[in-house]
């Protein structure tokens, strides 16, 4: 009887978005009289930080600091249609819609600035700090604050834009299954190290090293949040979670957090996260959806590590001590 160590690897990809019924999201952007920008959406923030990401996308596109963008979302009286927050689609679909709307608003903003500066709009650029400058002659500039005031009170222009991003529906071909189920793919590879107590069947995940390729880390700290939390959930799925522990028997399911098991703050694996960025062709600034796939590779990596440690395969999730002990017993018997 001993504590045995093992490690396992898994590599995966993950589709962004869904193809079931067409996949649209809209966004509207307009400027306030003093050059702040309101983004109106009906997308939902589940805690992943959708609002913050949309603000950064809008800010980058218009050329203002993020704190000059206000997000108004999840209200069906004001926000235009969004399919919803699922299928790793939020950042990708809503982000593209925001870019389109923001570009249109930016164009009007530059036109108004051009009139004020008496130059061509195509000769103007934003400095990202709230000013519009003439390319090559940066001393000739106007603040976005003044441009917005002028648009509102002098020139009668609406600095606004409409954005619509639609992935048309893909009908799978009946016999071959030819279909376009998604747009771009995120990738991951995880190496898990475990210890298995062959007397109790208990598995301890010592460390996971996760490499994720997510297109573009729009906000690296928020990407990290997703990936760390997702990696935790993957380990949790691998070893603990189920509402029906003796599936297909319906009994014994947990009804609260005492019975439904998940790793607590004292059970954390040492978690390393490495991020690669290969921008996708159609993502906002190349971003793909990282929120779902980050919880997938740990599950097989842990399963493979358990095999490496004790030489038994657990092909049924979750990998409980009971299953490991039964497998060890069967192995010893044969």
């Amino acid at each position: 009887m001993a504590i045995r160590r093992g490690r396992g690897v898994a590599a995966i990809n993950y589709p962004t978005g869904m193809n079931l019924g067409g996949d649209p999201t809209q966004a509207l952007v307009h400027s306030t009289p003093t050059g702040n920008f309101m983004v109106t959406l009906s997308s939902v923030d589940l805690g992943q930080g959708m609002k913050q990401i949309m603000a950064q996308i809008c800010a980058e596109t218009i050329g203002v600091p993020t704190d000059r963008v206000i997000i108004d979302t999840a209200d069906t009286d004001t926000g235009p249609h969004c399919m919803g927050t699922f299928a790793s689609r939020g950042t990708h679909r809503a982000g593209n819609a925001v870019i389109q709307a923001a570009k249109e608003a930016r164009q009007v903003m530059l036109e108004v600035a051009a009139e004020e500066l008496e130059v061509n709009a195509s000769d103007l650029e934003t400095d990202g700090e709230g000013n519009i400058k003439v390319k090559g002659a940066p001393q000739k500039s106007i603040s976005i604050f003044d441009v917005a005031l002028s648009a509102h009170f002098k020139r009668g222009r609406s600095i606004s834009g409409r954005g619509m991003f639609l992935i048309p529906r893909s009908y799978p071909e009946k016999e071959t299954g030819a279909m376009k189920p998604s747009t771009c793919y995120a990738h991951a590879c995880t190496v898990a190290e475990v210890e298995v107590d062959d007397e109790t069947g208990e598995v301890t995940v010592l460390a996971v090293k996760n490499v994720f390729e997510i297109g573009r880390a729009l906000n690296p700290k928020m990407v990290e949040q997703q990936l760390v939390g997702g990696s935790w959930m993957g380990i949790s799925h691998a070893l603990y979670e189920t509402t029906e522990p003796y599936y297909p028997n319906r009994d014994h399911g947990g009804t609260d957090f005492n019975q439904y098991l998940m790793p607590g703050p004292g059970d954390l694996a040492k978690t390393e996260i490495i991020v690669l960025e290969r921008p996708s062709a159609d993502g906002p600034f190349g971003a793909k959806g990282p929120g779902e796939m980050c919880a997938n590779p740990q599950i097989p990596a842990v399963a493979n590590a358990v095999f490496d440690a004790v030489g038994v395969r657990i092909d049924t999730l979750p990998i409980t001590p009971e299953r490991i002990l039964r497998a060890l017993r069967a192995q010893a018997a044969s």
Partner: protein
Amino acid sequence: MELRKDYFADVRKDGLHEIGQPRPRLDSPGHVTGKTAYFADRNFPGMLHLKMVRSPHHHARIRSIDTSEAEKHPGVVRVLTARDVPHNVYTILILIQVGPEDETVLADGKVRWKGEAVVAVLAETERAAQEAAAKVKVDYEVLPAVFDMEGALKPGAPLVNEYHGQNYYHYDSGECRKVRFGDVEAGFARADHILEQSYQSSPIEHAPTETTGCVVTPEGNDRFTCYTNTQAMFFTLDNASIILQMPGSKLHFVGGTVGGGFGGKVDVIVEPIAILSAKLTGRPVSFIYSREEEMQISSPRAAEKVVIKDGVMKDGRIVARKVTGYTDAGAYSRHSPYGAQKGAAHYPGPYTIPNVWIDTYCVYTNRTPSSAMRGFGVTIGDFALEVQMDKLARLIGMDPLEFRFINAYRDGDMKAHRQRTEGAALIECMQEASRAANWPVAEKYMAMSSYRKGA
């Protein structure tokens, strides 16, 4: 976290002002001060509380429902049954023409899973609603139930859901979604080894810390505002509009920050009945799942069974892969037909295999309907695929990581569902993992790239 900017630097423009910057989250100050408004933080004078009477049986005919005692219970304002729901039989994907309508808002004549909603009780307090719910008498005739997918697919199995007519979802392609690529039998015939293995998962709960729910208030002008933690505002509004036979213009949905979703809040379960309650009583109504309801009543991630048969050569090439996937939808479709279909497109995984055969089934059983969850249609498939990859590598005596390099998809490769691979990065992820985990692989693999000239 480490951002490895050296990979793919040639195809990426860095140095943007706002993108790529670790800006603080604009919602966090609200979180740390307790100011962020979640739907349940709204409280309206005169608000009623809704409690569901749920089926204690997995499968039963309802002979009769007697609500008279419950109605007399102090504090009870109204008791609703199937008769009160204008369009009681629905399915959420009908919005995108994926039917048939197969689920009842409140059970009508039959229950198909233990926990199914039968009667809604509205009372002045949660406690009164709870007590009155216990007084509703439902006379059931218990029917045989089926819990496992193999059993459900056998001839003569109890029929779970009459709206389907059989215990699986009927796609336009037949009893399953199919992918056919190359000639899988020819691939097996020339393979050095064949390995067929079966993988199984159990249902998994999203377990968000905030349970599913909504608060509805009549606006006095025939409009109803629904504060909800749905993940999809218009999807829910439009479904509510169908179920209630009420123009969408009468409905106003307000979301906000949701206390965790993970896919568990894309079903349209609480909103229609709560809006109906507000309409019929003229009062604000709160319908919030208890923790127990969240864990056992709200849709879990489906249990899945995945059978993989592979043909592999001694040199490491996988030459044929056949996958049969089963998704346990429980008693109703919800999003499961789509999840099973998504699985069909996901197999055979991020590998280039010349001969592929995929069948994915969406199976009905007498259990809690399952639905979307983080990694929908893919998570369990990845578990199966990647454990299978490990077994195959060991079968031919190859390092598991090197074995994956040999089969990894690269730009331009044709996938089984007939899309050319674009933007691949599996190889680079594995190279970086090899370094980070100190898991060395042969130099030729470290020299590989997802790029292909001319692709």
